[in-house]
């Protein structure tokens, strides 16, 4: 479709009745639910410990989730996700482990965040205009490392 101003005749046809130009999927209700708003991991120096969150797909469609860290660099080098990309079938749940591989020289409280991202729908307007709706849900992760680190002399 020509979009230059001299030929401004028909720009966007918003024919709301036609399914062919009006498709919106999967945004009508909450798709993802977390069983808790944050995860706490308790570990000792040198331990491998994990926290766990249950993710519920409460929609009627499979949910393709991408999980990634979006926190401070504080503990990013020794905290990892069990899986960074997965599909939860419609109406199903799955657990996701957040694993802390604690170095021996680390102690105290550390924080980061995990963001769960998924596409919630697509809105197709005129034949040349498409909007995708994406959701990102952030969850706090707190790692508590027991012990006192003492640097070598």
């Amino acid at each position, binding site marked *: *479709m*020509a*979009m*230059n101003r001299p030929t*401004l005749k*028909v*720009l*966007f*046809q*918003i*024919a*709301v009745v*036609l*399914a062919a*130009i*009006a498709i*919106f*999927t*999967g*945004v*009508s*209700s*909450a*798709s*993802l*639910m*977390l*069983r*808790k*708003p*944050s995860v706490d991991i308790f570990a000792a120096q040198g331990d491998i410990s994990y926290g766990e969150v249950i993710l*519920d797909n*409460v929609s*009627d469609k499979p949910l393709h989730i991408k999980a*990634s*860290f*979006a*926190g401070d660099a504080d503990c990013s080098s020794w905290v990892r996700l069990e899986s960074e990309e997965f599909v939860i079938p419609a109406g199903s749940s799955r657990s996701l482990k957040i694993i802390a591989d604690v170095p021996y020289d680390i102690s105290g409280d550390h924080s980061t*965040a995990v*963001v769960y*991202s998924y596409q*919630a*729908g697509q809105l197709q*307007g*005129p*034949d*040349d*205009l*498409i*909007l*995708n*709706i*994406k*959701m*990102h*849900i*952030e*969850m*706090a992760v*707190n790692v508590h490392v027991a012990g006192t680190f003492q640097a070598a002399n």
Partner: protein
Amino acid sequence: MKKSLTLLNILSLIFLAAGPVMAQNTGGIDVGFPPFAVGYTNQSWQFATFEASPALFNISLNDIKSADRTSAVVGNILNGTVPSTRTDVTGKSLAVLNHIEGFKIYPNTASSPFPSIWVKGGASNPESSVHFTGTDSDKFFQQGLTIQAPYYATAEYQWTVYVFADKDILTQTDGTVSGKVLDPRVATMRWFAWAAGGLSPDPNGIPKSAFGFRSPGQASPNMFNIMPIISNSASMSQKKAFLTGTSGASLPELYSAYPQEVGGMSQAAFPADGQIYYNTDRNTQALDNANNMAINGRSQIGLVYASPTGPRSRRNELLHIQFIVLWPDAPIGVSAGQKSCDINIYQRTTQ
């Protein structure tokens, strides 16, 4: 800008809410942490989810809860800003308006936002009579789609909501990995947010709009926000830094065709010259401005809502967001071909 903006295409209303129903503690299961749920406000002014996954350009009676249908009416009447006919709402308290089939938007025309969902209230609303006829046709209020905020069992969580896109919609200008905020005079997507309805509406959580203009003779300015853009290839950490940051990449990119930056001043001081100004009221830390959240400079352009901190953080309320795509009166280089854009809603929870 020298001339009025050309409104090309009003795309969608999106109301985000996390359902309180799902936030109930059920037995031994931890309290749910529901993300956004898109739904509507029903005739009882309560949040409800749609029955299925409706086309938001064309919501039918079957898309709403069966319990709400007898109170509802659907009219396919919208034709720009003026309806082709008025919908009879006699005996109804919920009205859904769709555009007429084959509706087209031309330059220098405007359209009502959609989806357009109206709920009957107790007061008179002049805008209501434009769309409706019949008994109490003047008492309907636009609700669009509705989103409900989470309700937490404990009060130590504050939640914030941001909106961003991967590119500018009409020019298809890509966001960089560090993000950019286009000059508001050339950005082709604007958004609006408000909080209303529900048991505990929290309009104080909505920050002041970032930009606005007042046309000659206009008593008050038209306020709006523009969409911050950041590349899809950016990591979530980069996106978070861009959205929540206070300097650097979150500052506006200026458009070379204009001689100087969009000025900043208090909203009440905008002159009636049609020019776009940055609203410095947005930087005033106040209880009625993002619940006292600090907004430094022109940062956090994508901030939709910030909940209170402390005990009131556990409240739930209804949020509303409306997106508008427009073709501003500027040499922005709209290209031919298909145009796509990812609108991202980012819900943060902090302790």
